[in-house]
C-alpha cells in the first residue's frame, strides 16, 4: 500500500507536465503558420525599431519632455497607491473578520468584503480607466481611481490573508489580558504583519508605475502618452528614449524597495530605525508632492468630478451598460454570444501561448541567471564566461519586465498583422523577465548541499541540472508559471486594445461605437475567463503539492 502511493505521486507530476505541454501545443495549432502573419514591410520596420534602440534620441528638449512625463507617471502611481492602501486597509481588515464577534457575522463579513475585493481586482486597471473616462471624462482622477481600485483589491486580499494567517498564541494571550477587538488589532495583528505588508506594497508599487504609464492610452498624460505619440510619428529613436525613462523609473522603485526590505529584515537585529524613517519621510514627501502637483498643476478638482453634468453622464453610461432603453441588448442576443465566445476562446489560446513562450525563454536562461551558479558556489565549477552570461541575462530580464506588455504590443503590431500571435508575443516579452527573475531566486534560495554532493559524485553540469536542481525547483517553477498565467489572463484584454486580437480588440471597437451592451457582454466573458483561469490554476497548484 505504502509503495503505490508515492510512485503514483511521481507519475501524477509527470502526467501533469505532459498535459500542460499538450495544452500549449494545442494553442499553437490555432494559428496558421505562414508568411501571412507579418506585414510585407515588417522586417525592415523591425530593423528600424532596433536601430532606434541602439541610437535613442538624446535631444535635450526631448529629454526634458521625458523628465516631465516621467514625473507625471510617478505622481499618478503614488497618488493611486496612497488611495489603494487606505482602501486595502479598511476593506482588508473587514474581510479578514478579525473585528467581528460571532461566527455568523464573521462569515457574512468575510464573504461580502472578500467578494468586493475579488470583484475590484478581477478587472484590469486600464478597463477601470476606460470606464471612468467614459463616465466622468478626462481627469487625472480617472487614472488615479483606476489605479487605486484594482491595486486596493489586490493589496486588501493579501492583507486579509496575512491577518488570517497570524499565529494564534500571541492573539489569544492579548485577548485573555482583556484587550478589546480594536486593541487586539493594533497591538497584536498589525505588528505581526506590517513588515511583510510593506514589502508586498513596495513590490506592487513597482507594478503601479508600469500601470500608470499605460494610463496614457485612455488619453491621460505621462510616459505612455509620449511613447504613443512617438510611435504614431514613426520616431522609433524617441520611443526608446521614453522607454529608457520608464526603465529608469522602474529600477529606481526596485532599488528603493530593496532598500526598504533590507531595512525591515535588519532592524529586527539592531535597534536603529534610521533607514526605515528615511523611507517613511521620503514616501510622505512623495505622496504630498504628487497630490500637490495633481490638484494644483493639473487643476484637478474632486468636486468637479461629482458635478451634475458628470453625474448625468455617468448614469447614462452605466444605464447603457445595463441595457436600459435598448431594443436588443447584445447580452441577450444569441448571435452576439456566439461571437463573443469565439473571441473568448481566442483570448484563452493567446494567454496559453504567451505563458508557453515566456516559459521556454525563461527556462533556457534561468540557470546562468542564478547568482549561485554564476559564481560557481552551487556546482563547484567556475568558468570565466559565467559572470558575463549572468550580467547579460539579468539585463534582459530587467529590460523585459520594465516595459509594459501594452508598449511591447504597440511595437509588435508594426511587424505582425493583427491577430493573437502578436498579442501572445507581447505578453511573453513582458513576462519572461518576471518569470526568469522569480525562478532565479528559487534557484538561489535552494539548499546547496545535495547539489554539491552530486558534483563530488562526478556528475556533469547537465546531469546536475536534471538530477539535482530540476527535481527540487520544478514544483515551485510550476507555481510561478500558473500565477503568471493568471496575471496574463487579466492582461490579454489590454493588448487587444492596440489590435492584438481577442476580446480586447472587440472591446475597443464597441467602445468607439458606443455599443454599451456589447461592452457588458465582453466584460462578462472576460470575467468568466478570469474566474476560470484562477480556478484552473489553483486546482493545478494543489495537484502538484
Amino acid at each position, binding site marked *: 500500500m505504502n509503495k503505490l502511493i508515492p*510512485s503514483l505521486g511521481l507519475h501524477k507530476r509527470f502526467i501533469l507536465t505532459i498535459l500542460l505541454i499538450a495544452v500549449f501545443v494545442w494553442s499553437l495549432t490555432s494559428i496558421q503558420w505562414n508568411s501571412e502573419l507579418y506585414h510585407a514591410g515588417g522586417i525592415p520596420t523591425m530593423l528600424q525599431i532596433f536601430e532606434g534602440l541602439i541610437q535613442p534620441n538624446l535631444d535635450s528638449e526631448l529629454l526634458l519632455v521625458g523628465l516631465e512625463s516621467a514625473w507625471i507617471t510617478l505622481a499618478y502611481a503614488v497618488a493611486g497607491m496612497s488611495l489603494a492602501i487606505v482602501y486595502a486597509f479598511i476593506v482588508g481588515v473587514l474581510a479578514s473578520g478579525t473585528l467581528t464577534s460571532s461566527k455568523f457575522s464573521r462569515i457574512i463579513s468575510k464573504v461580502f468584503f472578500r467578494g468586493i475585493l475579488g470583484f475590484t481586482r478581477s478587472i484590469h486597471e486600464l478597463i477601470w480607466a476606460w470606464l471612468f473616462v467614459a463616465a466622468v471624462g478626462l481627469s487625472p482622477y480617472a487614472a488615479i481611481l483606476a489605479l487605486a481600485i484594482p491595486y486596493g483589491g489586490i493589496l486588501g486580499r493579501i492583507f486579509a490573508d496575512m491577518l488570517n494567517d497570524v499565529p494564534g498564541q500571541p492573539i489569544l494571550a492579548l485577548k485573555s489580558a482583556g484587550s478589546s477587538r480594536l486593541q487586539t488589532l493594533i497591538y497584536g495583528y498589525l505588528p505581526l504583519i506590517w513588515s511583510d505588508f510593506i514589502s508586498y506594497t513596495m513590490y506592487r508599487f513597482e507594478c503601479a508605475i508600469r500601470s500608470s504609464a499605460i494610463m496614457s492610452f485612455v488619453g491621460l498624460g505621462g510616459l505612455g502618452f509620449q511613447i504613443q505619440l512617438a510611435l504614431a510619428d514613426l520616431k522609433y529613436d524617441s520611443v526608446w528614449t521614453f522607454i529608457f525613462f520608464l526603465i529608469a523609473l522602474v529600477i529606481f522603485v526596485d532599488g528603493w524597495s530593496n532598500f526598504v526590505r533590507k531595512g525591515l529584515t535588519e532592524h529586527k537585529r539592531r535597534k536603529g530605525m534610521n533607514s526605515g524613517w528615511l523611507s517613511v519621510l521620503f514616501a510622505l514627501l512623495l505622496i504630498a508632492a504628487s497630490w500637490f502637483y495633481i490638484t494644483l498643476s493639473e487643476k484637478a478638482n474632486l468636486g468637479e468630478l461629482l458635478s451634475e453634468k458628470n453625474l448625468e453622464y455617468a448614469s447614462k453610461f452605466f444605464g447603457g451598460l445595463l441595457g436600459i432603453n435598448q431594443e436588443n441588448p447584445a447580452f441577450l442576443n444569441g448571435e452576439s454570444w456566439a461571437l463573443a465566445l469565439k473571441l473568448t476562446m481566442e483570448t484563452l489560446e493567446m494567454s496559453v501561448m504567451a505563458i508557453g513562450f515566456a516559459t521556454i525563454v525563461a527556462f533556457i536562461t534561468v540557470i546562468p541567471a542564478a547568482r549561485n551558479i554564476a559564481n560557481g558556489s552551487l556546482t563547484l565549477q567556475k568558468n570565466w564566461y559565467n559572470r558575463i552570461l549572468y550580467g547579460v541575462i539579468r539585463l534582459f530580464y530587467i529590460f523585459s519586465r520594465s516595459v509594459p506588455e501594452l508598449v511591447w504590443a504597440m511595437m509588435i503590431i508594426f511587424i505582425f498583422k493583427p491577430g493573437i500571435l502578436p498579442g501572445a508575443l507581447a505578453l511573453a516579452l513582458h513576462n519572461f523577465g518576471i518569470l526568469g527573475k522569480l525562478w532565479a531566486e528559487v534557484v538561489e534560495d535552494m539548499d546547496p548541499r*545535495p547539489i554539491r554532493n552530486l*558534483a563530488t559524485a*562526478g556528475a556533469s553540469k547537465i546531469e546536475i541540472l536534471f538530477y539535482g536542481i530540476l527535481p*527540487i525547483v520544478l514544483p515551485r517553477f510550476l507555481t510561478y508559471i500558473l500565477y503568471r498565467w493568471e496575471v496574463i489572463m487579466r492582461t490579454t484584454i489590454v493588448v487587444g486594445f492596440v489590435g492584438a486580437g481577442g476580446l480586447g480588440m472587440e472591446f475597443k471597437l464597441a467602445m468607439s461605437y458606443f455599443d454599451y451592451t456589447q461592452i457588458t457582454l465582453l466584460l462578462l466573458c472576460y470575467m468568466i475567463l478570469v474566474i476560470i483561469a484562477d480556478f484552473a490554476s489553483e486546482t493545478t497548484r494543489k495537484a502538484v503539492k
Partner: protein
Amino acid sequence: MSSKTMIEAKNISKHFERKIALSSLSFSISQGELVAIIGPSGAGKTTLLNSIAGLVSLEDGDLLIDSKPLKEYKRGKRFARKIGVIRQQFDLIGPLAVIHNVLAGKLSEWSLFKSLFSLLVPQDKETALTALERVGLENKPYEITATLSGGEQQRVAMARLMVQNPEIILADEPVASLDPARADDVLSMLTAIVIEKNQTLLASLHSVEYAKRYFTRIIALKNGKLFFDLPTEDVTHEILNELYQLKEQGSDE
C-alpha cells in the same frame, strides 16, 4: 592489510580569514584502514575532510591521493572513482525517487544521454537494487526520498556510495542527527561495507564512543593541530580528557 598508501598529508595548512583551521598537519592512511577523526567543535575536522574532497583549497603543504597530488586530479569523472563523500542526510535530492538517488552514484560513468534516459526508465537497475538490498531498503526503490526517515535516508546515501564504489570514503559526521540505535545501525553497516570492499574510510565523529567501537585508528584534532594519532586500543581516558578540556591551556595562538 595492504600497505598501499591512499592518503598522505604533508604539512597542510588553511586559514579562514584570521582563524586557523588547519595548521601544518601531517599523517598518512593506508588502504583498508578505518580512521575516525575526533576533536572539539571547531577543531578543523570538516575542513580537513573538505580539503581531501577537493572542496577547500589548501594554502600550504601537499596532499597525495593514491600517491598523486590532489591538484592533478581534475574535478569530476575520474576523481569520483577515487573519493566518495557521505554527510548528514542532506546529501540527497528529496523529490526524486530512492532509486534515482542511488543511481546518481553512476553519473560519473554514464553518458549524458544514458543519465537522462534513466530518469524515465532506470538503467543498471540490478546494481541499484543489490545496493538497496544490502542496506535493507529493497522494498522502497520507488518511494520519494524526502518521505523516508533520517536513518533510512542515510542508508540510501550509503547505497549510492556502494554504486559509486570509490576507493576512499570520506564521512563527515555521518550520524550526527540520528538517535543512538539508528547511529549504531548506520555505522556498523558502513564499516562492514568498507571492509567487504577493501575500501578506505575516513570519518569525522562527535562521539568518542562510536570512534572506539567501529574504527581501527583515531586521529584527534585540536585548534587545527594534530593532538594525537593512535591505534584505537592505545587511546586512553586521560588523553581524551585532555582533548576535550574546556580551558584553553598555554598561549597556542
